[in-house]
């Protein structure tokens, strides 16, 4: 389908189905039950999931394929957000021009930062990108306050000189972002028994952009360009003696991944037109690194899974407080209740970072290939059991184990 091979098409179709039915899939628990707080099927959360998915998929094009570890990708996210809000302030509340400018602005910035940073490799490259991103953050807070809004952030106001459209709505409110008239906040709620499923236009718009971004990423992974990026990671010396110039390849990957970050930033303000400098902080850059490694760097679906896990933990686990914990264990004797609460409490609520740290540690130690590797191991386990069952105990261990699956191996 559309130039994808069989395995990739299957993967992509699964992704599409998950995206379309996300409001159901992420809302497994009935409203009002004690487990309802684990539901993630509300618009804010779903938008965040796909937006960070785009961010991570783009980051993976650089880090997963070329091995260059950027610690400054939040700068592109932030610039994308600012550019998006400015487009809405000046031109139109339609999100398409905003997204286009977000991508272009992030692309331009990443071209500059990448050009300088790629003169070094390894840890020096990482430090350079980190330094650039922190500079962008500081600039946004200080010199560039007229453009960025400084500490308050950049937001829409009632007197924006919008060329297409109006500064205020008839009722005197700030207009909301829309896609050719369909507002991002629009949606329908379907109540089925104890469940209520929200179908939000903003989410479906972001999901469509995600689907496009994912499609382009799959094509890139399977292209000669993607092959060259993996060559950059593997052996730059052999590359140059094979007639290939590794620098432009690395720079192109850097700019493409910067544009993905800008797209994610633009989508954030398309959902909620407010951009703040904290989006560019180094912790935000670190987060996308965690997402990619947690899910599986260099794999197609890994970064998306990693982004999902982190966004979910951040949003859901951080809302669990002591009272909620006591609620869970209320059936137990009081002393047991307090033991459980004491053990679990540091890992939830404010302490969700602790849980993330523990999960990250376990994954990196036991599954260096991330969540994807975990899935592959499970898959192999089942397949082997299945084969053994059919072939009456004939072992199939002689086959060369090269640790790749359909998500990594082109040409399959």
């Amino acid at each position, binding site marked *: 389908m559309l*130039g994808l*091979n069989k395995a990739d098409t299957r993967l992509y179709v699964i992704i599409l189905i998950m995206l379309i039915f996300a409001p159901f899939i992420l809302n497994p628990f009935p409203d009002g039950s004690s487990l309802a707080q684990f539901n993630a099927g509300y618009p804010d959360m779903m938008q965040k999931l796909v937006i960070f998915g785009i961010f991570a998929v783009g980051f993976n094009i650089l880090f997963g394929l070329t091995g260059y570890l950027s610690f400054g990708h939040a700068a592109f996210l932030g610039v994308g957000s600012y550019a998006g809000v400015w487009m809405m302030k000046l031109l139109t509340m339609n999100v398409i021009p905003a997204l286009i400018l977000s991508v272009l602005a992030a692309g331009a910035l990443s071209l500059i930062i990448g050009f300088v940073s790629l003169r070094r490799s390894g840890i020096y490259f990482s430090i350079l990108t980190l330094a650039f991103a922190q500079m962008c953050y500081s600039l946004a807070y200080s010199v560039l306050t007229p453009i960025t809004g400084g500490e308050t952030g950049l937001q829409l106001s009632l007197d924006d000189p919008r060329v297409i459209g109006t500064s205020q709505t008839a009722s005197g409110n700030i207009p909301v972002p829309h896609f050719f008239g369909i507002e991002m906040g629009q949606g329908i709620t379907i109540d089925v028994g104890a469940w209520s499923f929200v179908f939000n236009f903003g989410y479906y718009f972001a999901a469509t952009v995600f689907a496009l971004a994912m499609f382009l990423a799959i*094509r*890139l992974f*399977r*292209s*000669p*360009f*993607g*092959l*060259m990026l*993996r*060559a950059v*990671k*593997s*052996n730059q*010396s*052999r*590359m*140059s*003696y*094979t*007639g*290939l*110039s590794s620098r*432009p*390849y690395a720079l*192109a990957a850097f700019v*493409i991944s910067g544009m993905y970050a800008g797209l994610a930033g633009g989508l954030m303000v398309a959902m909620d037109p407010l951009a703040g400098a904290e989006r560019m902080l180094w912790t935000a850059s670190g987060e996308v690194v965690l997402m990619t490694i947690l899910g599986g760097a260099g794999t197609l679906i890994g970064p998306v899974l990693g982004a999902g896990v982190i966004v979910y933990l951040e949003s859901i686990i951080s809302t669990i407080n002591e009272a909620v914990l006591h609620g869970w264990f209320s059936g137990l004797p009081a002393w047991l209740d307090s033991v459980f609460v004491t053990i679990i409490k540091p890992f939830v609520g404010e302490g969700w970072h602790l849980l993330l740290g523990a999960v990250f540690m376990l994954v990196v130690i036991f599954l260096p290939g991330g969540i994807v590797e975990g899935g592959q191991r499970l898959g192999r386990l089942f397949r082997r059991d299945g084969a053994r069952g059919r072939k009456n105990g004939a072992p199939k261990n002689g086959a*060369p184990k*090269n*640790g790749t699956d359909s998500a990594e*191996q*082109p*040409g399959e």
Partner: protein
Amino acid sequence: MGILEVTGVNKKFGGLQALGDVNLDVAEGSCHAIIGPNGAGKSTLLNCLVGKLMPDSGSVTFQGKNLLGLKPHEINQLGISRVFQTPEIFGDLSVMENMLIPCFARRDGSFRLHAFETVAREKSLNDEAEQMLAEVNMLEKRNMQASSLSRGDKRRLEMAMCLVQKPKLLLLDEPTAGMARADTNNTIELLKDIKDRLHITMAIIEHDMHVVFSLADRITVLAQGTPLVEDVPERIKGHPKVREAYLGEAQV
């Protein structure tokens, strides 16, 4: 006039004269061997040819074009491929991918943003890569990860990667070092075949005299960075200077 001309090349590392006034003239279609004891400057000379090192003085021209100052990838794009002493391959990638990279480099040049093509759909390049793999008897290993190959296989893969580019000049730095006897003989046959069939000019550094005398049309003997003598193999064998400097130990 040779396809590759090296004139008066000097290279110093600190106080050490690695290359002193080296002249070399490789005729088109021939196989030119460079031999000499360890530390004679053979690899340094090769490094000067591919842009890894810049000589202090002298000139290097390939088909009349000056090579000095060009980057390694530019020199390769002119048609010079090099096999290294320790195999340089893409260890993380599969054998087939290793083969496809030079194919794309030859077709698309040193950089192209071909992000919307699909590797698996480039039928002719895939065929070419497979054919070359078959020639070095590695087709059944096409899906193996390159870093898991044996040392001899890595060498053969690297050679196949260079050959699939159809270079005009192939530089070989001890292509059979560390190979088993049978593999060495296969390599000799392969190189002979390439020379006869594809008319690729070769410059080869080699310690194994069996390989040198099976392949070379001309031999240059280097000692302490200076060419001692250059002649056809028959006369090199009996040359007193050469015996003294190098072959005395080998008793050819």
